[in-house]
């Protein structure tokens, strides 16, 4: 569209910090020229809770609840990354049951997280109904988690060397029930939202992230795959035995409009939910016997060393850089948040678009401010 034709008087507009579509407390300083956005300056830090400072004052297992609270939408995946990094530092190998349970929970959480992302995205764009469908399904996953470990959002489930609880009796059957019931919902979502004409108009030609930009800004996860790059750490650097599972890595194809658009990113998430379904089924089928507390060390005290470990969370590549001084308390814990890196790209892709497109772009990159500000 020729936006130049709509040029008018320039104005600075503050979007946020409290705004329903910023997915947390994010302030955007928009320099607008009529309806056209000339520049975007993101201001972050409103949710800064000093995670890294706290982590330097508590013992290794004590950090895990803080990890849960960073990306509160996908807590299972967050604590998993931390537990794996510490295990790497200690050279600790967990048993097969723990590995399988971790995959199972990570994928269930991925479905819950993508449902929230897709549902709220539809709502941001102006379609309210899919939100209700998505939250209905997400509720069922949260119920499963509540049954598993007592918490619905912040689980403290992945421990160093194991997991907190084995699955309760009947959990497997209930999960299978959920899978069978959830599978048609994805097809329903396609009908309801994905190919909806208004939705396509709002998203298919907006917020294009090119391959080059994505790499230079270290965009990861579904946002990167939306730009057509088949990169998934579960395939490339497998952990928890992901290499033994069969699944595909969905990428954006640019079916509607240019490659790397908001719609591509949205649709990668929808397709990923299907893959997660398959992963959960495989995990349930193989679930080996074992004691989930078998390898939990009495004392977590890694030798003097350091590690940077990364895992694939629903939002992309979450990295933990942990420096151990040889004591009971980490010397330094640094978190590389996938949302942090993708938000830094926002000014570049939002410039020159319309104000309404900002909403569509923010929703499509699926950020959680708790993880950006830490």
């Amino acid at each position, binding site marked *: 569209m020729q936006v130049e034709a709509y040029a008018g008087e320039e104005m600075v507009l503050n979007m946020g910090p409290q705004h329903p579509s910023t997915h947390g407390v994010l302030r955007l300083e928009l320099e607008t020229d009529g309806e056209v956005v000339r520049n975007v300056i993101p201001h972050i*830090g409103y949710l*800064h809770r000093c995670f*890294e400072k706290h982590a330097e004052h508590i013992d290794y297992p004590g950090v895990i609840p803080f990890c849960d609270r960073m990306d509160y939408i996908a807590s299972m995946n967050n604590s998993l990354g931390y537990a794996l990094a510490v295990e790497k530092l200690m050279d600790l190998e967990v048993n097969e049951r723990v590995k399988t349970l971790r995959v199972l929970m990570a994928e269930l959480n991925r479905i819950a997280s993508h449902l929230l992302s897709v549902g709220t995205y539809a709502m941001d764009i102006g379609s309210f109904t899919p939100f209700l469908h998505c939250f209905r399904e997400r509720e069922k996953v949260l119920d499963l988690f509540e049954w598993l470990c007592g918490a619905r959002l912040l689980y403290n489930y992945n421990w160093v060397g194991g997991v907190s609880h084995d699955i309760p009796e009947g959990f497997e059957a209930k999960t299978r029930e959920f899978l069978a019931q959830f599978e048609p919902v994805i097809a329903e979502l396609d009908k309801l939202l994905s190919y909806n004409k208004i939705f396509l108009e709002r998203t298919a030609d907006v917020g294009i992230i090119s391959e080059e930009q994505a790499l230079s*800004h270290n965009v990861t996860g579904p946002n990167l795959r939306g730009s057509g790059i088949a990169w998934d750490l579960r395939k490339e650097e497998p952990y928890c035995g992901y290499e033994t599972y069969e699944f595909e890595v969905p990428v954006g194809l640019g079916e509607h409009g240019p490659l790397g658009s908001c719609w591509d990113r949205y649709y990668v998430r929808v397709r990923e939910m299907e893959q997660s379904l398959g992963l959960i089924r495989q995990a349930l089928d193989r679930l080996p016997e074992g004691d989930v507390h078998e390898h939990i060390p009495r004392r977590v005290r890694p030798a003097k060393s350091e*590690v*940077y470990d990364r895992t694939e969370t629903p939002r992309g590549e979450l990295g933990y850089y942990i420096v151990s001084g*040889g004591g009971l308390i980490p010397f330094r814990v*640094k978190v*590389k948040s996938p949302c942090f890196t993708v938000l*830094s790209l926002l000014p570049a892709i939002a410039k020159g678009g319309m104000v309404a497109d900002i909403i569509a772009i923010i929703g499509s990159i699926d950020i959680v401010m708790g993880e950006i500000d830490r």
Partner: protein
Amino acid sequence: MKQASEIIQTLQDQFPDQIIKSSQECLQPFVVVASDAVAEICAFLKNDRDLAFDTLMCLSGVDYKNAKNEPERLEVVYHLFSMHHRHKIVLKAELPREDPALPTVETVWDIANWHEREAYDMYGIHFDGHSDLRRILCPDDWVDFPLRKDYVQPETYRGMPAAAAKQFAERAQEGEDLGTDPFRAG
């Protein structure tokens, strides 16, 4: 894909004076480079066709004050990865704790812009040539650098109490009458 030893060898051949030391015995091999040559070395690592480090995975500051058996210093750690060749390397630059400064790598990887702002915000490390070196997580008028090991939390910020309030249990232990004990005499 190249082994870490080959990457380190290439670096040593290319920058004989700027490589201070390297280690391959640890979990993830690293190279300590002269801090003023960081930008040059990073640009080489990215642009060399056989190395092609196209991704800056992480840029972190570390404050080695009061660390056991470690000289006192600040460190900037670059975790690099090549998506094209799938190899990794860790670069480290050591800086004094007083007036730490080194060149920016923002021109090499765009993401360094925000990572460096964070390192500045938390450790007070200056990145020379950075286009927009402002605080990122803390408010603009915040004093001092919170992740330094000798950081002292201010009592107030703009007249608001900034220190954490005492927990009820602590206050009770100190003998304060909280008026919440149902068995309290009187």
